[in-house]
């Protein structure tokens, strides 16, 4: 068991290092931050001083080594724009993002999973078809289109809800609905196919042949098995809690991590971008670890494999 997790944690660290490296390379190579921040008219001596202050005149590999050295010490740099620690800027924004993503996650689970189960149990029925059509629509319509559509209907036409900003709980409804509807569609589709797969298994027929009432066949035999693949997609959704709202936050002018990222990228504010990417990589990796652990809990076949180590 220990070795199982050691390998997984090693793999997680490697993923984080790769993500950070990728971000470092792409951002450094795609433009000069000093020009971006100080503007093209800035005098050359000011530019040189800025570059020296931020270490931008060092060879790229030294910047890279320095950057990793700093991360290892827990220093994630300062914003090039206002000089505050990047981590502080990011942490400030997290509650706003979670205020959208957490209710949206609850919405996805509460709507998507029951809809998927219901559709699978009534395969081919009108309700199944309705769920599937909605799911495909929710799956294919990009979130900014859905967001604009909701704004058009509920803010512009009906005037029930505000179209942007963060002044009251009413401002959160449309962004949450945008995030939640798309996610619920994905989850419904996934749950449905996982359920159908399980319902076709011989052990379901065995349970019916034993005289187990159908309701119990579903709850006691089918659901625990269908949960195994569903956990994968849930884990992925947990991984997007921090940064899964970039588009929606931009559309609704919601001051969360996603908007910070957009602004920081536009400004070449390297430390902030890297800090966010690191955070995203860490949440992704952590949620993957949780999924691995849950697999072991849900599936005795995997548990047994771990126990041999």
């Amino acid at each position, binding site marked *: 068991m220990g070795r199982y997790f050691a*390998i997984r944690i090693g793999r997680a660290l490697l993923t984080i290092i790769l993500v950070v490296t990728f971000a470092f390379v792409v951002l450094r190579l795609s433009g000069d931050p000093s020009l971006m921040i100080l503007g093209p008219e800035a005098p050359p001596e000011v530019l040189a001083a800025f570059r020296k202050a931020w270490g931008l005149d060092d060879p790229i590999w030294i910047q890279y080594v320095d950057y990793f050295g700093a991360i290892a010490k827990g220093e994630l740099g300062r914003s090039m724009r206002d000089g505050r620690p990047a981590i502080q800027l990011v942490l400030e924004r997290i509650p706003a993002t979670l205020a959208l993503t957490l209710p949206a996650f609850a919405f996805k689970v509460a709507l998507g999973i029951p809809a998927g189960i219901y559709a699978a149990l009534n395969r081919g029925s009108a309700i199944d078809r309705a769920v599937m059509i909605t799911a495909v629509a929710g799956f294919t319509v990009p979130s900014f289109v859905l967001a604009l559509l909701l704004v058009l209907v509920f803010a512009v036409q009906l005037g029930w809800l505000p179209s942007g900003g963060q002044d009251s709980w009413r401002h959160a409804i449309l962004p949450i609905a945008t995030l939640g509807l798309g996610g619920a569609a994905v989850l419904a589709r996934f749950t449905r196919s996982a359920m159908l797969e399980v319902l076709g298994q011989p052990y379901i027929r065995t349970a019916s042949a034993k005289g187990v009432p159908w309701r119990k066949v579903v709850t006691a035999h089918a659901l625990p098995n269908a949960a195994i693949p569903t956990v994968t997609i849930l884990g992925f959704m947990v991984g997007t809690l921090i940064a899964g709202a970039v588009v929606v936050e931009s559309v609704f002018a919601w001051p969360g991590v996603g908007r910070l990222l957009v602004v920081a990228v536009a400004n070449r504010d390297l430390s902030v971008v890297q800090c966010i990417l690191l955070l995203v990589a860490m949440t992704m990796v952590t949620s993957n670890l949780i999924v691995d652990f849950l697999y072991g809990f849900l599936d005795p076949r995997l548990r047994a*494999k771990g*126990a*041999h*180590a």
Partner: protein
Amino acid sequence: MSAPLVEVAAISRTYTMRSGMFGRSSAVHALDGVSLSIRKGETLGLVGESGSGKSTTGRIVLGLEPPDAGEVRFGGKSMAAPGTPEWRVQRARMQMIFQDPLGALDRRLPVADQIREPLDVHGLGTGAEREARVQELLRSVELNPQHGRRYPGALSGGQRQRIVLARALATKPDFLVCDEPVSALDVSIQAQVVNLLADLQAELALTMLFISHDLRVVRQISNVVAVMYLGRIVETGCADDLFARPEHPYTQALVSASPAPGRRSAGRIVLSGDPPNPAARPSGCAFHPRCPRAISRCATELPALSSIASDRQVACHLVSGSQAQSQDAA
């Protein structure tokens, strides 16, 4: 009596298997000193249960995987190293058919194209000659040109296996390895394919290694039969005689476990114990924990395969008696 075309000399094969994803690795002795020889134009039947090593033997004979020890000789010459030109020449003379014909065929190509493929690959004949050969092959497996134009999905299981057979015969091989070729087929279709295989074998003077768990089918098609248990041959003999008078206790149990219409189960030998596990091979004779006649010697000493009659060899302390010398094959 003709010379052997295929000789397998004391081949062994060990796999390393991990128990679980990260468990300690352990050695699985899939094959342990197996020797066989198949005379030109004859069929050797290889029977055994899962884990007996019969399929591994087939793959090694074809050169699909190397043995850890021992060697395979084909036409008196050692098999060349895989990938070399000599190997390709030898390999072109051998073909194989497996249990699942659908897996062996490409679903997106008409079956006639697939029969033609080996002719194209080896550059045999002109375009017209190849086309004629495809039609001839289709006829030889009792299918017509219409069948050739279909896709594998539009054919029945028996017809697909005929296509696989036709493709295997395209390059006029001398030697055919058949691994459970009729096991997935229904009885009436199985009989058609078995008859066809027997006819073609006689007509083309094919040499065959026929691997199956089904004693009846093996007897029907083989001249000589070898019985395997946990990676070793425990008995060989002429097909009719072996199943009529099995000597090894395992062969006796296998014959007895093969139910026959018109015979009630009275007097059947039912072996106790779990099926054999190659990862936990018992000491001595691997069969001793399940053997109804085992004596103490069986648990410690590996019995060698020794002749008890002109064409019968048995690896059992109780059968070969005291003249059998223990021999460590490893």
